[in-house]
């Protein structure tokens, strides 16, 4: 368990490629923006799948608790995640 932990990389959600599944660790936002993110279900522990990029590579669509939600890089950069697969 402990050894496995060393290889885990903590990354912003914006860096994750399409097709990967990650788990939310921490939100770097504050105030209203943080409240909105929490409202979408982006709480620590939530599992997110990176679904697709838009034709111009931003925004990116994610599967968050059963709904497909697109986030701009400005937002996804503020969500720290850990890769699961």
């Amino acid at each position, binding site marked *: 368990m402990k050894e496995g932990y060393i290889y885990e990389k903590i990354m912003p959600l914006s860096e994750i490629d399409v097709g990967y599944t990650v788990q939310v660790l921490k939100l770097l936002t504050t105030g209203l923006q943080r*409240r909105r993110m929490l409202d979408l279900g982006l709480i620590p522990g939530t599992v997110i799948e990176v679904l697709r990029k838009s034709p111009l590579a931003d925004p990116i669509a994610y599967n968050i608790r059963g709904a497909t939600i697109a986030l701009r890089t400005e937002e996804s950069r503020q969500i720290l995640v850990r890769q699961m697969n």
Partner: protein
Amino acid sequence: MSLMCKSCSKAVLNKKFNIKLNCHDDLVIALAGNPNVGKSTVFNALTGLNQHTGNWPGKTVENARGNYKHKDKKFVLVDLPGTYSLLANSVEEQVARDFICFGKPNATIVVTDATCLERNLNLVLQVMELTDKVILCVNLMDEAKRKKIKVDIKGLEKELGIPVVGTTARSGEGLQELMDQVYEIALGFQTTSPRPLVYTPDVEWKIEELTPKLVELLEGKLNPRWVALRLIEGDPTILDSIRNFLYDDKDSNAQEEVACIYEC
């Protein structure tokens, strides 16, 4: 006469939400739900062409209302904006929250999508915290079937402690039962026992600390636990709403009398 009406919530409906009733016996039903769950389909299916749209007073948010009759009663259905939560992070959420909280509808229907129930339950639990006159409508049952998702309606009813109806509003399936349940709840023939939301010990402790003071300040007009939670959460809009709906008494007499004229 005006003294009698001061205590009646229908005056608030007229004054703050621009909802006029033809008859004092009309029952007001709020329709809440996440965006994209077929809420407007349910609304249209229940009210048909007996509907009209306007704006919420002072807000550029659409306000659709419609009427339907069930058994011996007339119902006014108010379509609230589609929201993910009632935590008032947007105008829409504030409008929805204020209507359920201060408009005191006779019952609230929460429409959810059977194919992503988990996300939708977030809103349901929040509405249940505000009012016990709630009916859950699990819509899009046909989509769920197509996607091979099974929802245990009876089990959900037991978990939540409120009536749950599975519907496919597009084809009208389940709507009769929904209207029956709304009738029962709105007229008080059936009571619910919503599952209470439990928070972490530090939050619960904070609520306890605030409650005595809030009981005194709110004079039984709002649930102190709910207000305590909003204060802890740092909701910037709740105090404005409390002021607007509970403490704002200026020039209200004249308008309340107008409301009385509509009574029969």
